[in-house]
């Protein structure tokens, strides 16, 4: 065994004992497997709200088992580790308790960035101290080749997750405009960077020098940043899901390095979860994943086009008109969108629903898959406002009902109700599944002003229909006024 040959590349002293790598005692292997299974059950629980909390507990137990097992196996430095866990745990716990539900998308993006950074740090630590991770090749004293690939990919995905999530966080949190930022020649730059990263990971096989490793890391940070910069606010549901997926693949890659089944199972679960959510979001917008990633679509507010919006006749209504119409109705379907989240109107909306129910009106909620800034965003906000989940319906379950509905009440949504998606082949949103609000007897449409158009920059014919009444005001104020008017 020629250790001298390795030491110039490796900054650490290594013991010959590393040959026993990969040998985890079988009880520990079993424990990791159990924790992996518990993670599967955690996700399985989410198939229904009734089983979901039990699922979450399974997840916690799984994590506890994984952590305790690792501590028993490598039980030194426990005090520092306990302090680190206490610091992180306290920050996480307090944040989770305090965060407003409307800020969930930002929080999730911030959490993703932490997973990404943790993956990068673990990969760097493994690179600096491969003996500890059991990835040294006893024959050469170098890092095992297969581990180099895994580490290279792990650090790259982790870094992309980190910088991408930081940008997503800044955009969602409003620290950075939601408008896409377009660099000239960005596709060429991105593809070039990606090719360089993959090339370097391959080269890392033959040369494990720090330069190669850290250049991979640095380039990955850069590409994560560049990938998300050109993506507009309204495409954030796809971005957040995609980064969710990446954080999983990063964990899986590190799981390969450590030969740890809990990490591999979790990584695969999270990776596929994010991928499926991205797919669902893309389908709900009738856009290909590639076109979302390519970016440039979906500035936050009325940016492009829409000049013709004010020329056509439309009807304006007051809170009293709306209250009157809804009290007379047999059924009202409420269609919430991102605007409801921005105006924090969910509580007022629930109050309105309660009053209407007292008047004998049937109230339902219709949720478009991409309403809001992350998958399921509207559902959480309505749940927060105590709207029972069995009054909340997905697009395909409720779309047939608009034709038999007296009032469709659109609050803070726009493009997801645009009939042009069904009829106008030239429209940028053509083919996107939409809620058929125009089929209701009356459409009440809350909007801040007639000037702005939705994120897609297209005018909505619903505004100008005979059976539409525009309620121009801040969503929360309008709903509050309607509540007063219903209650007299």
């Amino acid at each position, binding site marked *: 065994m020629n250790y001298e040959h390795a030491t110039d590349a490796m*900054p650490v002293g290594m013991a010959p004992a590393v040959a026993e790598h*990969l040998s985890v005692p079988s009880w520990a292997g079993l424990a990791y497997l159990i924790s992996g299974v518990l993670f599967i059950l*955690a*996700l399985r629980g*989410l*198939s229904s709200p009734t089983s*979901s*909390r039990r699922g*979450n507990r399974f*997840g*916690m137990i799984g*994590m506890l088992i994984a952590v305790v097992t*690792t*501590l028993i196996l*490598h039980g030194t430095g426990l005090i520092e580790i306990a302090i680190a866990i*206490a*610091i*992180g*745990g*306290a920050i*996480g716990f307090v944040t*989770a*308790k305090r965060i407003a*539900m409307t800020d*969930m998308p930002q*929080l*999730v993006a911030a*959490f*993703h960035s*932490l997973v990404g950074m*943790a993956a990068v*740090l*673990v990969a*760097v*630590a493994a690179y600096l*101290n491969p003996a*500890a*991770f059991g990835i040294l090749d006893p024959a050469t004293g170098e890092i095992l080749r297969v581990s180099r690939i895994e580490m290279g990919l792990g650090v790259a995905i982790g870094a992309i997750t980190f910088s991408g999530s930081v940008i997503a966080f800044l955009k969602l949190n409003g620290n950075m405009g939601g408008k896409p930022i377009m660099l000239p020649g960005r596709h060429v730059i991105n593809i070039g960077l990606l090719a360089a990263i993959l090339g370097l990971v391959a080269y890392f096989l033959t040369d494990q020098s720090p330069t190669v490793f850290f250049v991979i890391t640095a380039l990955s940070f850069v590409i994560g940043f560049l990938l998300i910069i050109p993506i507009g606010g309204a495409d954030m549901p796809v971005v*957040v899901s995609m980064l*969710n997926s990446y954080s*999983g693949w990063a964990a*899986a890659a*590190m*799981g390969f390095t450590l*030969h740890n*089944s809990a*990490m591999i*199972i*979790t990584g*695969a679960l*999270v990776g*596929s979860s*994010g991928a499926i*959510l991205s797919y669902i979001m893309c389908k709900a917008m009738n856009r290909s994943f590639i076109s979302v990633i390519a970016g440039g679509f979906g500035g936050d507010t009325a940016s492009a086009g829409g000049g013709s919006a004010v020329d056509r006749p439309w009807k304006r209504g007051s809170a009293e008109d709306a209250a009157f119409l809804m009290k007379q109705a047999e059924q009202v379907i409420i269609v919430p969108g991102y605007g409801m989240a921005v105006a924090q109107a969910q509580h007022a909306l629930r109050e309105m629903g309660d009053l209407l129910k007292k008047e004998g009106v049937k109230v339902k909620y219709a949720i478009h898959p991409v309403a809001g800034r992350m*998958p399921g965003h509207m*559902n959480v906000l309505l749940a927060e406002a*105590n709207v*029972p*989940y*069995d009054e909340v319906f997905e697009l395909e379950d409720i779309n047939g009902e608009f034709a038999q509905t007296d009032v469709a009440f659109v609050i803070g949504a726009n493009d997801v109700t645009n009939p042009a998606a069904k009829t106008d082949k030239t429209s940028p949103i053509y083919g996107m599944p939409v809620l058929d609000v125009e089929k209701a007897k009356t459409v009440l449409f809350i909007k801040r002003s007639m000037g702005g158009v939705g994120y897609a920059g297209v005018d909505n014919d619903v505004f100008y229909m005979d059976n539409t009444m525009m309620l121009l005001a801040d969503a929360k104020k309008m709903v509050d006024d309607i509540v007063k008017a219903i209650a007299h």
Partner: protein
Amino acid sequence: MDFISILSIFVLACFIGFYVVWSVTPALHTPLMAVTNAISSVIIVGALIASAAPGSATSKYLGLIAVVFASVNIFGGFAVTERMLAMYKKKERKG
């Protein structure tokens, strides 16, 4: 474990993930993201190994920082999921 056994676990877990996630009700997609976030912090296993290992001080400190980050996520992710799930209620049965 050799590479092929690990790969087998990975591939099969991807299939499980596919079926399990498709069965998640769309209403719970936000909690799904929060909980997947929490469980992907199982990467803390790697961070703990780095923190506990002798040999490289840098590696140890990087590991400890990673432990902090992963713990934020674990505690924060599970707690916020719990908080959200507690809000989902069925209609109250009233007379």
